[in-house]
């Protein structure tokens, strides 16, 4: 995994943490101002959900070196369970989100126990196959309504006071959830647990010889990443008001890889930038049909061949900072 080493492995000292704090404040300020700026808030909310999804994915690939090619299964499961709970059971949004995340955690435990039995490239193929298995399950079980998906999910009142059907309220609720989750991820990667993950990424046999049960660390990282991806899916339900098969399809798993790769694998802010870039691109190119796929493919190829650090990774490398 040495080739994946980013500047964060050079040792983060105190001033660099201040950089990250400034970057976080700038990001927060920009996002808080969105509703007054005239930018279409629906677009930003959608991008925030995908940014959270990409950050969750990055927790796994960027910090423990495991490439999951089936992360859409968490996004989709979180979404389906939340949508079903909110629409059919009529629970309030916060309970719906909790149920969605709980389902993602359960899925993470089961799939994690299976997938971490193999290393490296096999791990990617197994996660992809598992998510395809789940795709067919969701295609056939009645509660997901197959090709139609769960539509017209009521937005409801969060905690009984925040009316999510008002765009402004919804925007700030989504933003707060995103920022809290972002801080949680930041906390995880800078905790002793996160340091062990990085050591596994850099040299797993060494970590084992130091007495770490690496399989347990990897499983924990997988579950955490899956839970946060499930959270992204659950929140997305209230933005899009539906849950559909698109969110469980392998193309979605590929998209989150692309977002993270464009922004920068193993960088704190990279996945956010990557998600905004890719979602914006899809918005502008929506009328070009399949060209979106072709362009995404080209971005993949260009990134892998020439731009492996991603946008934020390149900036961080240039200024010799950790972002």
């Amino acid at each position, binding site marked *: *995994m040495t*080739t*994946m080493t980013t500047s964060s492995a050079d040792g983060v000292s105190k001033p660099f943490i201040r950089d990250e704090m400034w970057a976080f404040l700038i990001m927060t300020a920009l996002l808080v101002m969105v509703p007054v700026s005239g930018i279409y808030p629906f677009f930003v909310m959608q991008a925030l959900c995908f940014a959270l999804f990409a950050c969750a994915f990055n927790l796994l*690939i960027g910090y423990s070196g495991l*490439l999951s*090619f089936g992360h859409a299964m968490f996004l989709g499961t979180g979404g389906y369970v939340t949508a079903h709970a909110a629409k059919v059971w009529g629970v309030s949004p916060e309970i719906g989100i909790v149920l969605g995340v709980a389902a993602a955690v359960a899925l993470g435990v089961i799939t994690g126990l*299976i997938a971490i*039995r*193999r*290393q*490296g*490239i*096999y791990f*990617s*193929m*197994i996660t*992809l*196959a*598992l998510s*395809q*298995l789940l795709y*067919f*399950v969701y*295609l*056939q079980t009645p509660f997901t309504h197959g090709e139609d998906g769960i539509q017209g999910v009521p937005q409801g009142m969060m905690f009984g006071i925040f009316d999510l059907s008002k765009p402004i309220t919804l925007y700030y609720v989504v933003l707060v959830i995103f920022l809290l989750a972002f801080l949680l991820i930041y906390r995880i990667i800078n905790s002793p647990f996160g340091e062990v993950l990085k050591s596994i990424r850099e040299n797993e046999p060494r970590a084992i010889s130091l007495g770490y049960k690496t399989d347990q660390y990897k499983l924990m990282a997988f579950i955490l990443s899956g839970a946060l991806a499930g959270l992204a899916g659950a929140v997305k339900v209230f933005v899009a008001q539906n849950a559909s098969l698109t969110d469980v399809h*392998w193309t979605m798993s*590929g998209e989150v*890889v692309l977002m993270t*790769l464009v922004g920068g694998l193993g960088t704190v802010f990279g996945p956010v930038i990557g998600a905004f870039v890719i979602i914006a691109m899809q918005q502008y190119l929506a009328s070009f*049909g*399949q*060209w*979106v*796929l*072709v362009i*995404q*493919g*080209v*971005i*993949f*190829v260009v*990134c*892998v*061949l020439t731009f*492996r650090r991603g946008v934020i990774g390149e900036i961080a490398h240039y200024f010799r900072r950790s972002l």
Partner: protein
Amino acid sequence: MQALYAQLLVGLINGSFYALLSLGLAVIFGMLNIINFAHGALYMMGAFVAYFLLQYSGLNYWWALILAPAIVGLFGILLERTMLQWLTGLDHLYGLLLTFGIALIVQGLFQNYFGSSGLPYAIPDLLKGGVNLGFMYLPIYRAWVVVFSLVVCLATWYLIEKTQLGAYLRAATENPTLVRAFGINVPLMITLTYGLGVGLAALAGVLSAPINQVRPLMGADLIIVVFAVVVIGGMGSIMGSIITGFALGVIEGLTKYFYPEASNTVVFVLMVLVLLVKPQGLTGRAA
């Protein structure tokens, strides 16, 4: 019983495609250390090249059987020389991401020009019709696909396990630096290996064209099943890939008959079971 035999035959045919594709993946992985995500897209290209040959130059199925793998193989060699070779020494995952990108480009382009519906490709005259075996009706073309795939698989096995060239190949898989020191052109062998693996995928595409129609996305879902096949069988052994491919096709066919709801998922479920019981895969070396 008729339906059971029919599903068994369909299973054997799907098994031939799994075998040809997982064989190519295993050969490529051995030499390049890359999981070729573009394999499904190249399989689709094989079918399309056969379609173009018939449509625009009047070259029939038999020509396509030789020309399509050669053309797509050359395209693969081009990919290897221009892109994949730059990944030597990098982490495995970049090879997967790069070939995934290539698959998106190829599938996207074909979808743009040909939509998502299937184009028909006629069964060649010589293989039309069928024989009544008494217990079932056997379409000749379907029998041909199974037999021909088996022959190609065994020929590939023979090439790699029993010939001088195959010995170089296996040696280069183990230790490329040492083999180079003996004056053997390993980079050339790597390129040709990729061409061979891709050619096998394209051949499977040509074989499937008269059965499954020619569609831009015909390889997209197939490749994920083949990945599961590879996880089950392991990529260490050529014969292992062949046997696992055919066996899983047959099991899938049987599932279609006894419990059709699970026919899409049976291979993945088997993968889970194998991982729980024997994590290294049935034949594979630990990786």
